[in-house]
Structures are given as C-alpha cells and as structure tokens.
C-alpha cells in the first residue's frame, strides 16, 4: 500500500463517516440507531469499511502518477472500484449483523430468514450497493482531483 493510497483511502472513509453523521444527527434518530449496534459490531463495521476503502482506493490509483498530475482515467477507475467498495461493504455489513445476532441471541436466527436475507443482499441489495458505491466513488474522485489541484498550488 502506497502513502497516497493510505491518505486518499482514509480520507474517503472519514469523509463518508462524517457525511453519514451530518445527515443522521439533525434528524434526531442517530442515538437509537447506534444503540441497536453493539460497540464491537460498530467498531468491526468501521474497520471493515476502512480496510475495504483503502484497498479499493489503492487499486484505483495503481499505475497513475496523481501527485505528478497524471490523472487520466481516474474517474473511470473510481467508478469501477467505488462500485466494488459499496458491494464489499454491504456484504461485510450483512455478515457482521448476522454474526452479532448469532452471538448475542443464539438460536433466534432462523434458516429461512437467513436465506431470505442472503437472497436480498445478494440480489437487489448488491445492485443498490454497486450503484451507490459507484456514485460515491465518482464524487470522491472529483474531490481528490480538486485536492490535487490545491496541492500543486501549495507545493
């Protein structure tokens, strides 16, 4: 992992985390929503998002000299890797929530509901995650390029 992949990937993770907080807090339901997650699950979920995002970002910038100003094709790569990022995050979310249910309330997770959930996550949910991930990836790539333009002015 390059220093640039680490910086951009962590920036993307922090920006998405902050954006979700800014959107959720003024509505007033944030405390209840967070309380439904155990602390361990919440931390594991964030670490999963962080790891996946740094990986996807590092792959999307591989072979490009962004710091040197060669950014041709970055948006196309960000679209593709952003979509994969969204998909992997959804699958991590589903797996962690199922694991939390298995650990905290063993025996309450019925095979039928597990199959139904897996079907939804693997089908419609995956399509939605791909689309959201692609749009977020595209938006973050534009912010990265704006940041790079400012960086060129600074150094």
């Amino acid at each position: 992992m390059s220093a640039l992949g680490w910086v951009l990937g962590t920036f993307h993770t922090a920006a998405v985390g902050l954006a979700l907080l800014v959107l959720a807090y003024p509505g007033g339901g944030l405390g209840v929503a967070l309380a439904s997650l155990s602390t361990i699950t919440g931390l594991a979920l964030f670490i999963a998002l962080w790891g996946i995002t740094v990986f996807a970002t590092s792959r999307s910038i591989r072979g490009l000299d962004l710091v040197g100003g060669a950014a041709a094709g970055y948006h196309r790569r960000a679209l593709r890797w952003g979509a994969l990022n969204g998909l992997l995050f959804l699958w991590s979310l589903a797996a962690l929530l199922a694991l939390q249910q298995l650990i905290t309330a063993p025996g309450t997770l019925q095979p039928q509901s597990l199959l139904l959930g897996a079907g939804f996550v693997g089908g419609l949910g995956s399509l939605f995650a791909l689309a959201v991930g692609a749009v977020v990836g595209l938006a973050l790539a534009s912010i990265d390029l704006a940041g790079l333009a400012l960086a060129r002015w600074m150094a």
Partner: protein
Amino acid sequence: MDHQQLALVVRYAHVAAMAAAFGGALLVTWLAWRLPRDRVVDVAVRYEQLFWLAAGVLVMTGVGNLGAFGAALPAPGSAWGRTFIAKLVLIALLLIVSLPRSLAVLRAAARPAAPARLRPIYTTTAAILAGIAALAVGLAHG
C-alpha cells in the same frame, strides 16, 4: 470485557488519537517555522501517515462514543447538540484542509527542489485542531 470497560477503551483511544494529531501538528508547525524546508518534509511525510491513522481512529471512536449515549443522545437543538454540530463543521473543515496538505507534502517529498508552503498549512491545521479540542472538552465536561 464488559460494555463499560469497552466504552472506556474507546474513549481513551479517541483522546490518544487526538493527542497524536494535535501534538504532531504543533510539532511540525514549530519545525516548519524554525528549520529549512528540506529538513521538515521528511518529518511532515511521517506526520501525514500518522495524521490519517489518527483521523480514522477519531471518526471510528467518535461514532462509538455517540453510540454509548444510546437513546439519551442530546437533541440537535440543545446546547450540547449545537456545540456538537459546530464540532462536526470544524472536523469537515479539517478534512477539507488536510487532503490538499497531505498531497502537497507527498508532492514536496517527490520534488525536493520545488518550494512548499508548509508554514501556513500546518499553522492552519494546528489552529483547527485546537478549536476541535476546545469544543470536545466542552462536550465532555459541559
């Protein structure tokens, strides 16, 4: 580890990450004003890697701290809520300033001969972090 112990670990991690980000920013700011550019860039590159580790930990543990409130999380219209929203705005500003700063430092490391405006960008970073720390103390102690 029970819930309260875990919440305490999360809180300690939050404070430690803030100490690393703020303390590091103060150190690099001080070095940038005292030393020639070429001697500061190496330290700045290390700081940038540490800064983003701290930023990730701060967001992660910050959400964890909010989760510890549960349904008792103060409303956005309360004094605590307004201070918290001000803190979120400053954090957004910190991220907006930090992305080009980090990229500029990586660029300066790759191009040793080019000039770099390290003094104003690190001074600004340290000032924003001081504001966030002041608001955080207000949120924690009322």
